């Protein structure tokens, strides 16, 4: 039982890191990236390949060292990928950027599915040679990573670079007039965001027996997008909250038919809910449409939880 709970929590945690990373690109800098799952996947594969190559024994001191190295490698790989995507996309705005990043995400997925199936495992996926971490250990590692990511992004947000990101979101040309190097900043945002996604990917790989290309497709990106829209684009607290809320909704949708049947015992209700269980994506799609129309700023907007405790001058956001 505890295993299930920790498992659920640790996946929620991984999505928290993903949300924070995507928020940096979409929410803070206003760049519409729809290929984020690709960086997640690159990080996962990098970490998995490293661990497969090294094959440390689980829980030995060497294991933890290799864990860190693998994570660093994953972040590096994802960051480089972010650079490769960010540079060609400098001149793109809005819709074009969305499509370009979407296309990039698809290219990466196709790559993992087809290229060198002996190395990457093809569409069935890559099996990890090392046993996966036990859920409670994995959860602790994920918590540490969340803390790290949150601190990093929060520091960025209150730094000059962070303000520059926000300025670019508001009006890129005005920011350039004020002397900011928009191109460099946009690439920076991409690289940092993708590196953090790589971090999430590495943790994902460590906590599973198998990683497959279908985990890193458009569906994943849309889920993360939904999380940050729900929480509020531009708010770190919002990203965390959105991931938590959606992480709770997912099992709820899946077990709702059983719960309902238990309460009401009526066949028709259960039938409808069973359909929803087969296709939770319909609910997510409706949620996305409804949310973006009725409350586009999400729950937190651009505010943070710490704003409540701030006295005196409010940080501009």
């Amino acid at each position: 039982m505890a295993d299930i709970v920790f498992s659920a929590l640790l996946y929620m945690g991984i999505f928290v890191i993903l949300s924070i990373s995507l928020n940096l690109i979409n929410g803070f800098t206003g760049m519409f990236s729809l290929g984020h799952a690709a960086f997640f996947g690159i990080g996962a594969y990098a970490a998995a390949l490293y661990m497969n190559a090294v094959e440390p024994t689980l829980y030995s001191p060497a294991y933890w060292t290799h864990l860190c190295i693998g994570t660093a490698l994953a972040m590096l790989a994802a960051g480089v990928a972010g650079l490769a995507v960010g540079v060609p996309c400098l001149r793109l705005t809005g819709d074009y950027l969305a499509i370009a990043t979407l296309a990039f995400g698809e290219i990466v997925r196709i790559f993992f599915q087809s290229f060198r199936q002996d190395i990457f495992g093809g569409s069935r996926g890559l099996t990890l040679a090392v046993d996966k971490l036990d859920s409670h250990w994995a959860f602790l590692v994920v918590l540490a990573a969340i803390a790290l990511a949150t601190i990093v992004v929060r520091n960025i947000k209150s730094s000059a670079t962070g303000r520059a990101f926000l300025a670019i979101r508001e009006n890129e040309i005005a920011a350039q007039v004020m002397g900011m190097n928009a191109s460099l900043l946009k690439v920076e945002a991409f690289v940092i965001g993708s590196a953090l996604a790589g971090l999430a990917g590495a943790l994902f790989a460590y906590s599973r027996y198998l990683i497959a290309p279908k985990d890193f497709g458009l569906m994943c990106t849309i889920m993360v997008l939904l999380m940050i829209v729900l929480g509020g684009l531009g708010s770190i607290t919002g990203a965390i909250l959105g991931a938590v809320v959606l992480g709770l909704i997912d099992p709820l949708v899946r077990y709702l038919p059983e719960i309902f049947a238990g309460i009401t015992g009526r066949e028709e209700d259960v039938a409808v809910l069973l359909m929803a269980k087969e296709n939770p994506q319909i609910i997510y799609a409706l949620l996305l449409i409804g949310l973006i129309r009725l409350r586009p700023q999400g729950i937190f907007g651009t505010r943070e939880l710490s704003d409540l405790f701030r006295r005196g001058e409010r940080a501009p956001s």
Partner: protein
Amino acid sequence: MKELLQTILDGLAEGSLYAMIALGYTLVYGIVKLINFAHGEFFMIGAYIGLFILATPASATSSPWLFALVLALAFGASVCGASLLAVATERIAYRPIRGYDRIVALLTAIGVSFLLQNLARLAFSPNPRSYAVPGNDPDACWGAFLRWYHAYAHPLGFELQNAKLLILIIAAVTLAFLYTLVMRTRFGKAMRATSQDLETAKLMGIDTDAVIARTFALGGAFAGLAGMLTGMLRIVEPMMGFMPGLKAFVAAVVGGIGSIPGAVLGGLVIGLAENLAVFANLDSAYKDAVAFAILVLILMFRPGGILGVLRREKV
């Protein structure tokens, strides 16, 4: 040499399918500056409507005339059905958010696309289906059509070797129709006016709401037609609109979004490039990646597209 010609024909045929879908994207983008991610789903619906009409025992008939009737009905229904879906989508999902932020429009479009895909999965099973009726051979539909053609229409003059040529002919006719519509009719003028400047068009007395709705209908009709044609050649399944939709959007961007000739050119370029790449020994697993590679190149070196005009952003 013969294989090369066949490859080029395949490329042009696939390219015209992409072009038809791309036309829908470009028309809608030109008029409301919205990338309708759900456009691929209009394509999918066209294929499914064709499926429901053709995968019935009626299509296995030996009477060529009855078959021609069923086929015509299938074409008509799929075009109309996709068109209706397009208009409904515009009315329900896009009209209420007109004038809102770009991000709202983008996310709504993504949401609608997702919703339609999954509704289709729910309504029609996720299993792939084909136009052939169980018990007939897979070519029953196309075979019956060819029999009809050779019996009755062949005297018209040209030899019809395979489905690809038919697609090209249909695409050419469609384009001629669209050109006439946009350039020579009042409605076409209204469309061009609305896409240039919505406010002024309204001031000039143009019912912009109606123009926009009809543009969506037109785009949807083309997508449905392409869907029906694809369904005749390939299997039909709920997610079938995703990849072609994406590639068609790439085609529209490559040709210059907002430009009708651009959409056609882009579609043909992508179709040809894909098939030529496979001909040049590219592993067919990477066929999909060709379109995206072209996109990256175009965006880096000519972001306005081949025929597009890069508008300078003014502050």
